[in-house]
């Protein structure tokens, strides 16, 4: 076994570091403490992305490409990293990458660089003005810092003609905007940057990014207060969903949460928080009591200001696209929801989508459950498996032996659990899910086993495994334990992961649903693009044909694809669906195909009608769901289809 120290100082070439860095997907999980391992001290202290593991990885790529030359600031960036190894633990959990090796290679690069060659970056009038607002330390025009924001708000092909500024309160945001306007400089806010990261390798990058100007990094707006009496929380724009959920849980409350790394305020703005808890907890403006916003003139407003014009409505129709937020939300007072003592997970396995969908919508309309979703086999495999290879084998076993293609996942209290169990023949419970998490490595090795062959010959393998005597055999075969699952990690991290997997929450499906630390595993060294949207559920065939359209596109363009999830909204009258395409973001050819899927699937969805596509969702989260989802969108006409194409041509230009 290699010791911690030996691994930590292991030397790799700059070229190898670039190869590791290229696999990074800007998931942002290194910016908050989701494993109780601590969080990067340099990032926490300095704030700018270049000081975080994620930013260092991007910086290494940008230095390698020659887009940025070493500046004196780079010395400070590398010196701020003590090679403490926290980033390796966090990143390895989700992506199996080792960012510390990249940080070490960057240190070596700087050590060997001719000291006279470091560029000195001078302060200009704009920077001086920004520093007067936020303080010397929190505004920069340093190219090395700017370059680290590539792919998470900045495109990869522009000059580094930007400023990064980190305000600490709403008033400073307001002043920055007024200053930007006075100087006619464009600006864009940034929180986690994860939504842009997903778009960055595609044709959407141009429309969603900032072409020049001021990036307002909202990380320092870190107010977080729980108000147990009113079941609300005041959340600053720098707070992630995980951090909110953690504080809420201390008060036996729960927030409607998207992915762990999503920032609460920006997630509200961007999509209105798409979550499997949405049927019960709400969507769009249901999520908050109040918002503090700064508009593009720098005026500070609150939604609760009774004199202001209705801030909850938005124009309907397919042309109502918005590529940037209308306002910067600097603070939100969000709703929290009670956690019940008797909450549990019930998973209902299916071999076909129609039956799974039918059950989901029935439960949604009856108001059963707190969290409701159809999850695909691919989702389960990605989430539960500690490594990419195990996820592939896990998927294979489910598909070829168990015929386990979908599960309806229900988080509910005991009353609702009984309702679900009465509706179906068999379920998967918390205990078996725990075994699947801790026994995932063994489960994946069963693919050539006699046990699986026998099971696959059963008329209904799902029944045999989940309701029959085979279940005990399976649990035994899995040999689930924190020790066994930790063995798949690098030698020096095994002890750490043994402790991680020993924690009850790591196998508690209710906790995992609420804290959502596992979905980032979909970004394991590759990207995914998840188009979809919300469709009316009044016509089952219409809905399923819509999903089939995404599947056909994946086949046609030869991209790995799978349904992600379906979750009901508005008492089951709508259901949100994400269809995922997995691809290598460093391969330009597949990026082009993904772009085509994004554009074509949106056009086809609009032609089909009764759907609000993900692009129509963008930046509508602060409005009432009644204004966003209704009136039901009719399928667009030929003339409108032409207009849509022209519109996209305008937005995407020759890149389309």
């Amino acid at each position, binding site marked *: 076994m290699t010791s911690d120290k030996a691994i930590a100082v292991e030397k790799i070439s700059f070229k190898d570091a670039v190869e590791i860095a290229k696999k990074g997907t800007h998931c942002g999980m290194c910016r908050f403490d989701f494993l109780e391992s601590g969080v990067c001290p340099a990032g926490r202290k300095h704030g700018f992305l270049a000081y975080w593991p994620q930013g260092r990885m991007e910086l290494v790529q940008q230095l390698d490409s020659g887009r940025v030359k070493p500046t004196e600031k780079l010395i400070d960036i590398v010196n701020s990293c003590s090679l403490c190894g926290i980033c390796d633990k966090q990143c390895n959990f989700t992506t199996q990458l080792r960012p510390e090796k990249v940080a070490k290679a960057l240190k070596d690069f700087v050590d060997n660089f001719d000291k006279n060659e470091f560029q000195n970056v001078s302060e200009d009038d704009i920077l001086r003005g920004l520093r007067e607002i936020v303080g010397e330390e929190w505004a920069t025009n340093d190219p090395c810092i700017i370059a680290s924001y590539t792919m998470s708000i900045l495109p990869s092909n522009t000059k580094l003609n930007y400023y990064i500024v980190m305000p600490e309160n709403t008033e400073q945001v307001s002043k920055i905007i007024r200053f930007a306007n*006075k100087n*006619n400089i464009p600006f864009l806010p940034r929180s986690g940057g994860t939504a842009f990261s997903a778009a960055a390798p595609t044709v959407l990058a141009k429309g969603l990014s900032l072409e020049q100007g001021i990036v307002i990094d909202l990380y320092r707006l870190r107010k977080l207060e729980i108000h147990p009496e009113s079941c609300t929380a005041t959340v600053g724009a720098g707070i992630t969903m995980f951090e909110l959920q953690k504080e809420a849980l201390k008060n036996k409350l729960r927030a409607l949460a998207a992915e762990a790394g999503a920032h609460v305020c920006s997630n509200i703005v961007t999509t209105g928080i798409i979550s499997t808890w949405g049927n019960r907890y709400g969507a769009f403006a249901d999520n908050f009591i109040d918002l503090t916003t700064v508009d593009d003139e720098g005026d500070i407003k609150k939604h609760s200001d009774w004199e202001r014009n209705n801030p909850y409505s938005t*124009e309907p*129709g397919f*042309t*109502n696209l*918005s*590529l940037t937020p209308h306002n910067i939300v600097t603070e939100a007072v969000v709703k929290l929801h009670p956690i019940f003592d008797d909450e549990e997970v019930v998973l209902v396995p299916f071999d076909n989508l129609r039956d799974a969908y039918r059950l989901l919508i029935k439960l949604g309309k009856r108001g059963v459950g707190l969290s409701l979703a159809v999850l695909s086999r691919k989702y389960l495999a990605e989430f539960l498996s500690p490594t990419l290879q195990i996820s592939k084998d896990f998927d294979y076993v489910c598909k070829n032996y168990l015929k386990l293609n979908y599960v309806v996942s229900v988080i509910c209290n005991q009353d609702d659990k009984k309702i679900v169990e009465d509706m179906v023949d068999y379920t998967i419970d918390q205990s078996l899910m725990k075994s699947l998490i801790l026994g995932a490595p063994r489960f994946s090795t069963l693919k050539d086993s006699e046990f699986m062959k026998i099971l696959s010959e059963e008329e209904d393998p799902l029944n045999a495994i989940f309701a029959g005597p085979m279940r005990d055999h399976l649990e035994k075969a899995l040999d689930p334990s924190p020790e066994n699952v930790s063995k798949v990690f690098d030698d020096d991290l095994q002890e750490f992961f043994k402790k991680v997997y020993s924690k009850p929450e790591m196998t508690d499906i209710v906790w995992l649903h609420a804290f959502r630390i596992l979905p980032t595993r979909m970004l394991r060294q590759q990207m995914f693009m998840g188009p979809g949207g919300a469709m009316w559920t009044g016509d089952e065939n219409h809905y399923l044909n819509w999903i089939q359209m995404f599947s056909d596109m994946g086949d046609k363009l030869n991209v790995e694809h799978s349904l992600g999830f379906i979750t009901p909204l508005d008492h089951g009258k709508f259901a949100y669906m994400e269809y995922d395409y997995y691809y290598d973001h460093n391969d330009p050819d597949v990026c082009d195909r993904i772009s085509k899927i994004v554009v074509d699937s949106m056009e086809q969805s609009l032609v089909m009608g009764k759907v609000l596509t993900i692009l129509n969702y963008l930046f509508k989260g602060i409005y009432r769901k009644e204004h966003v989802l209704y009136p039901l969108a009719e399928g667009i006409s030929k003339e409108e289809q032409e207009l849509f194409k022209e519109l996209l041509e305008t*937005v995407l230009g020759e890149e389309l």
Partner: protein
Amino acid sequence: MVKFLSEEWIEIGKKYILEKLDPVKDLKSITTSLLGVVEHIPPDDITMNFYLELEGGKLIHFIVNTGDTFDEKEATYEIRGNYGTYKSVLQGKMSLGIAVLKNRLKVKGSKMQALKLIKPLDGVIVSLKEITDEFED
């Protein structure tokens, strides 16, 4: 050199549109009016506007004013944005459509209708790009 929003800009713009653009072919016989409000004009951070009216694709009015309203005529559409955004559009760095979708230019009224207008107005924008080559710093 013709400076954006100057009297000369209006005069040359009018002449260019009338002489070079075909009302049917280039301007699709469009009948509409547009108020373009330009905010944060340097060096004194003032606001100006231009009013443009077309009837059957023929230019009827092209007027520049100070302030953010034009009292004599009520435009069908109002597009509002800062000087830098208009400059980017007229320099060809950003299309009118993307400026609207990025909320750099705010449309008063239906975005659907405004976006439908963009195509027929393309000729006008191209004309203004051709003649405008001086901006405030």
